[in-house]
């Protein structure tokens, strides 16, 4: 067989704004969400959950529920015993970490409001839920550890048997590590002739609030038990099920079908998954559980929740000399899958893009009687970025410098890369000057500063603030050896395989598990370029342990930079396997073959054949070289050599109504350097969505508990997710310093917007009212908090909201308190 079929030159796919392959199904409703699955004889679960944050279960009367129509069983922790397995913590951050046992359904004591105490199994979801109301549980309420700082003082114990709420203390010190100087010396020196900025910031508790509530179906009727779950981590889930239930891994198949968002919230192994698994096995029938939104907000893991005590030292000219970080991190009631590792992921990032000569990070994780916390978009790095970007802005204010000039004075210059930081990381590439210059131009920085000056001088009731965030992050989790050093329980590699089909089409499997990111499209583009096959001919398969058998799933902006590299390497192996076969068929020497544009050609001739033709030839296998297998399929497992360091400059303009405390976003510009861009359309979506999640932390979202440990923001009526009407359109662009640690030069983008935007917004709000003596406003910056910050002084202390608000409104107009002053005045 020789090449007779010429193919038009394929346009370069990488860099094209391909429309997504995923969309046709999603825009027509032809979707495969877990909750859509129905099976013959399928049973439904409803959970009976504790209303108390901390209580002993004294009795459970199931009789009335068991007698309800179509109820099959009512099961408690005592009924299931060890058959329910246990939930794991994959990252004990210290070897002496204190962690309670974590049964999916405890038999005797509940340690947060929402914990499952009984499960009702019925023929329909509605009947299960009806009967759940009939389960009579008696509790002896125990004192609950709710407030993080109080819990850290062990005033009330979340788990009395443990004797303390302190789970683990983790420290990094640059002097001890040999990566920098002594931070206490630097601070002491700055107290005498330099500048010291000391602040305490609150990272409020957030809820990931993915749009698809979690759902799980288990079918135990096959030889392999199959679990469908709305999860980010089918492979880790399968491993953990096998490790804790005694069921061999080879007897478990996990499928993550269409998954409706995750943002870290579905990077978890959940009590509900374990209970469905145990009950399906016990009853021998397919079983489904889908949570309500209220359950999702109450018991799906939360994020952030830290107090950050920060000390930054500098010389009087603005040169930073030291940074000391002391964190209290609220774990909630259990040390969950990543748990205490989340704040530690920030440990290497507080120093950010700046050349601190001395650095120290201390983190105390604390158990409380609240919903457990774990990864939420950014996981550790938003906290770090918020702290340092707020501090750098405060230092600039203290020294009366422009915040960008102060940053430039301290950041790593582009000619200094690769740069080893005081936290011991090697940043491979970056150009902070270029991103900042572009962002300033797009923003109209100087003009907005001028407008700000005019409004201040005129005493305008609506003040303008400009916020800066020049962030970097570490992503692409992660080099396995580094994870090993950090005592993490797994590796950080990713796997891919490329299957060359007889008809020339290509199936690709990836261990990354998409839940909205667009892997099917971006990965098709990579393979199309690498193998020189049409984009349409590539099918990307994922999220099923039987199909993509090896993988470590999707989180930490890792899919492209780790999974994409595995894909490149598998594709390259396909080409190398095809080469001797093509040479044989073309009757040429292997050394005389060139591969380009999907085609092997014999140098200096017009002879050649496409890789698709080689695929067909190995399928028929009529003619191939001796000693070679007749197939091209190839696998690759890639373990990254380094983290990956995207960066960017984000500029935000906020208008603050000083009479009402209302804030309004005027403009948001960001220039992110994420190296090579595979698909600019997908990148724009990641940036926009990331920005809004970060902005939402700054302005709107907070999971609030009452003193008894009850979540009071447990519905979308109370937990303020932004809407289209709350947000604006963004101006985004890029500079590019390709990464040198992966073949394609890519950097992660999934978390960048969220990591960068929060401090940009808060810096802008504070900047707008700094001349009132304000240097901080706690997140979320609600109108009440902003108003209080502005008026604390003129109200003479006490509660400034009482009495003082009315005089700002003119009752004579009849518009008392109703005038919209949020649109701002113009000068």
């Amino acid at each position, binding site marked *: 067989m020789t090449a007779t079929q010429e193919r038009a030159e394929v346009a370069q796919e990488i860099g094209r704004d391909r*429309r*997504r392959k*995923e*969309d*046709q*199904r*999603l*825009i*027509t*409703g*032809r*979707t495969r*969400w877990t*909750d*859509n699955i129905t099976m013959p004889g399928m049973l439904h679960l409803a959970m009976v959950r504790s209303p108390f944050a901390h209580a002993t279960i004294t009795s459970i009367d199931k009789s009335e529920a068991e007698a309800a129509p179509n109820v099959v069983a009512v099961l408690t922790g005592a009924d299931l015993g060890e058959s329910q397995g246990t939930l794991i913590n994959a990252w004990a951050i210290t070897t002496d970490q204190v962690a309670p046992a974590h049964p999916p359904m405890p038999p005797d004591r509940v340690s947060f409001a929402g914990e499952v105490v009984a499960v009702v199994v019925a023929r329909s979801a*509605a009947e299960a839920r009806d009967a759940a109301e009939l389960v009579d549980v008696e509790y002896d309420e125990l004192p609950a550890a709710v407030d993080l700082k109080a819990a850290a003082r062990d005033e009330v114990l979340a788990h009395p048997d443990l004797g303390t709420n302190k789970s683990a203390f983790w420290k990094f010190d640059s002097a001890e590590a040999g990566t920098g100087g002594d931070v206490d010396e630097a601070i002491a020196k700055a107290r005498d002739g330099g500048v010291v900025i000391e602040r305490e910031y609150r990272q409020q508790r957030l809820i990931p*609030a*993915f*749009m*698809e*509530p979690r759902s799980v179906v288990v079918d135990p009727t096959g030889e392999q038990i199959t679990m469908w779950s709305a999860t980010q981590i089918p492979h880790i889930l399968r491993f953990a099920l096998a490790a804790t239930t005694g069921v061999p891994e080879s007897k478990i198949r996990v499928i993550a079908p*269409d*998954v*409706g*968002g995750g*943002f870290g919230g579905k990077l978890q192994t959940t009590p509900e998954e374990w209970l469905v698994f145990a009950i399906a096995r016990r009853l021998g029938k397919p079983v489904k559980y889908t949570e*309500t*939104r*209220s359950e999702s907000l109450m018991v799906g893991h939360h994020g952030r929740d830290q107090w950050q005590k920060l000390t930054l030292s500098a010389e009087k000219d603005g040169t930073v000399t030291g940074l000391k970080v002391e964190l209290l991190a609220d774990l909630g009631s259990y040390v969950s899958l990543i748990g205490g590792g989340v704040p530690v992921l920030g440990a290497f990032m507080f120093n950010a893009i700046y050349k601190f000569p001395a650095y120290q990070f201390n983190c105390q994780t604390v158990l409380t009687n609240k919903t457990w916390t774990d990864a939420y978009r950014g996981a550790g790095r938003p906290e770090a970025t918020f702290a340092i970007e707020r501090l750098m802005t405060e230092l600039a204010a203290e020294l009366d410098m422009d915040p960008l000039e102060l940053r430039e004075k301290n950041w790593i210059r582009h000619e200094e890369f690769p740069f080893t930081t005081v936290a011991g990381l090697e940043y491979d590439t970056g150009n902070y000057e270029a991103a900042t210059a572009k962002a300033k131009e797009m923003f109209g920085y100087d003009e907005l500063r001028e407008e700000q000056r005019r409004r201040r001088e005129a005493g305008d009731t609506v003040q303008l603030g400009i916020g800066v965030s020049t962030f970097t992050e570490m992503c692409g989790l992660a080099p396995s050896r580094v994870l090993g050093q950090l005592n993490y329980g797994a590796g950080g590699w990713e796997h891919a395989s490329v299957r060359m089909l007889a008809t020339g089409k290509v199936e690709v499997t990836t261990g990354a598990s998409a*839940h*909205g*990111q*667009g892997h099917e499209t971006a990965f098709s583009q990579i393979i199309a370029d690498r193998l020189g096959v049409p984009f349409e001919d590539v099918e990307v398969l994922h999220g099923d342990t039987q199909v993509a058998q090896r993988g470590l799933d999707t989180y930490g902006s890792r899919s492209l930079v780790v999974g994409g590299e595995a894909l490149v390497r598998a594709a390259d192996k396909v080409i190398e396997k095809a080469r001797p076969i093509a040479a044989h068929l073309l009757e040429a020497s292997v050394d005389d073959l060139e591969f380009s544009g999907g085609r092997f050609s014999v140098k200096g001739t017009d002879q050649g054949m496409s890789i698709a033709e080689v695929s067909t030839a190995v399928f028929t296998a009529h003619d191939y070289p001796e000693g070679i297998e007749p197939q091209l399929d190839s696998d690759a497992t890639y373990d990254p050599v380094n983290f990956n360091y995207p960066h960017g400059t984000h500029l935000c303009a906020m208008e603050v109504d000083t009479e009402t405390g209302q804030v309004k976003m005027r403009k948001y510009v960001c220039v992110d350097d994420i190296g090579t861009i595979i698909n600019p*359309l*997908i990148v*724009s*979506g990641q940036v*926009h*969505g*990331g*920005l*809004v*999640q970060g902005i939402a932390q700054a302005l709107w979202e907070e999971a609030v508990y009452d003193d008894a440990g009850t979540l009071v923001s447990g*519905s*979308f*009526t109370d937990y303020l*997710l*932004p*809407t*289209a*009407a709350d*947000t604006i*359109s*963004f101006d985004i662009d890029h500079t590019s310093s390709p990464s040198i640690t992966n073949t394609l030069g890519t950097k992660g983008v999934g978390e960048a*917007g969220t990591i960068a935007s929060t401090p940009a917004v808060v810096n802008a709000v504070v900047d707008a009212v700094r001349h009132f003596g304000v240097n901080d406003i706690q997140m979320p910056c609600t109108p009440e908090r902003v108003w209080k910050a502005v008026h604390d002084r003129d109200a003479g202390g006490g509660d400034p909201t009482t009495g003082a608000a009315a005089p700002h409104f003119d009752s004579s107009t009849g518009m008392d308190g109703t005038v919209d002053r949020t649109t701002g005045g113009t000068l």
Partner: protein
Amino acid sequence: MTRISLTVDGSKVADDVEPRMLLVQYLRERLGKTGTVVGCDTSNCGACTVHLDGTSVKSCNVLAVQADGAEVTTIEGLATGEDLHPVQEAFRECHGLQCGFCTPGMIMQSVALLEENPQPSEEEIRLGLEGNLCRCTGYHNIVKAVQQAAGQGAAS
């Protein structure tokens, strides 16, 4: 049980339903119209938005019995054969979706919005979609998709 008959995506259907059954439950559980999804339990998220006699409604906020005799259009009935509705096409063209869970409701609401106001301003689009939550896109590309469907310029 109450007998209802209605037209859903052009097909006549009739069933006995519990009076408490929600329209969205009827669509998903009885008719297998799983394109329409449930995202919350407080009628905040809008993921379940369908058209009831030409008006957009949150189908978690309508009882199945209230739809008796009505004409219901879901995301599954929006395209004409292979031809996508212009709003569906615009969502794909402008990357107005990521995970896609809010998308059925978002598209159905956008269609209703444009029927009421064929040339909306950006602010009118944003206000018109206020009852539909999306966690992935930051709304930027959703707004662009609606603008494009309204003939207000191409995607970039």
